[in-house]
């Protein structure tokens, strides 16, 4: 039994039976299946960015986190991740004369089959959604995402709800 994660997509009239792999340029942990840890963030993403058809779908799934690099809550994992990102950034910058983006570093580690040793990477940034915060003018809550590289770990992937934008 894993933890519940949420996956947001445009509503195109048919239900998905598996998540859609993300290859977008702003997918900064590289090519993978992106999930939200929080239903509110999944909903906000649907309203804000998956709104072209006027409706969005939020799916939920169970994903075990026993082989996930947890850079959010696990200190050892976070230190490891920071070390590798900075080490690669230094090497690439020195060798090429050009600073890499975070996505380029993560894609490098994916292509070299480093990150694929994990089922995925759990990471966080800060939400832009002011609605879900209980205090004024401070984004205190982590926005947590899972970039999953091994989709065989997903179970019970089902439509959670359809929302209107």
């Amino acid at each position, binding site marked *: 039994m894993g933890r519940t994660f949420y996956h947001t997509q445009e509503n195109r009239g048919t239900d998905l039976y598996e998540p859609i792999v993300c290859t977008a340029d702003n997918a900064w942990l590289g090519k993978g299946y992106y999930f939200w840890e929080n239903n509110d963030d999944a909903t906000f993403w649907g309203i804000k960015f998956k709104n072209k058809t006027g409706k969005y779908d939020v799916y939920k799934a169970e994903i075990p986190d026993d082989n996930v690099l947890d850079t959010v809550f696990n200190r050892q994992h976070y230190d490891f991740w920071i070390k590798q990102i900075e*080490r690669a950034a230094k090497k690439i910058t020195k*060798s090429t004369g050009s600073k890499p983006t975070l996505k380029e570093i993560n894609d490098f580690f994916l292509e070299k089959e480093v990150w694929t040793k994990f089922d995925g990477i759990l990471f966080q940034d800060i939400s832009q959604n002011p609605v879900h915060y209980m205090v004024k003018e401070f984004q205190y809550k982590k926005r947590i995402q899972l970039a999953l590289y091994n989709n065989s770990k997903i179970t019970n992937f089902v439509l959670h709800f359809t929302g209107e934008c």
Partner: protein
Amino acid sequence: MVDLDKLDKEIEELLENETSDSLTKWLLNRRLGNINNLIGKGTFIGMQSKRESVFSCSQKANFKTKDSYTDSNPINRNAA
């Protein structure tokens, strides 16, 4: 779970084996990959301007002569 110490050493080795050439090629391919797909791989050759007789123009403008064709008064032309 992955042994992080072991993986740390593997990454160190991996990066040590990368050369300036290999990383530059990799980065350029990532950033210009789409352009390369469009125009193909190869060496860029600077386009040089060459003056060859077939393209050169031997006729020289003779503004003085051309001005003499006009039948209008030069003073009126300036006023217009």
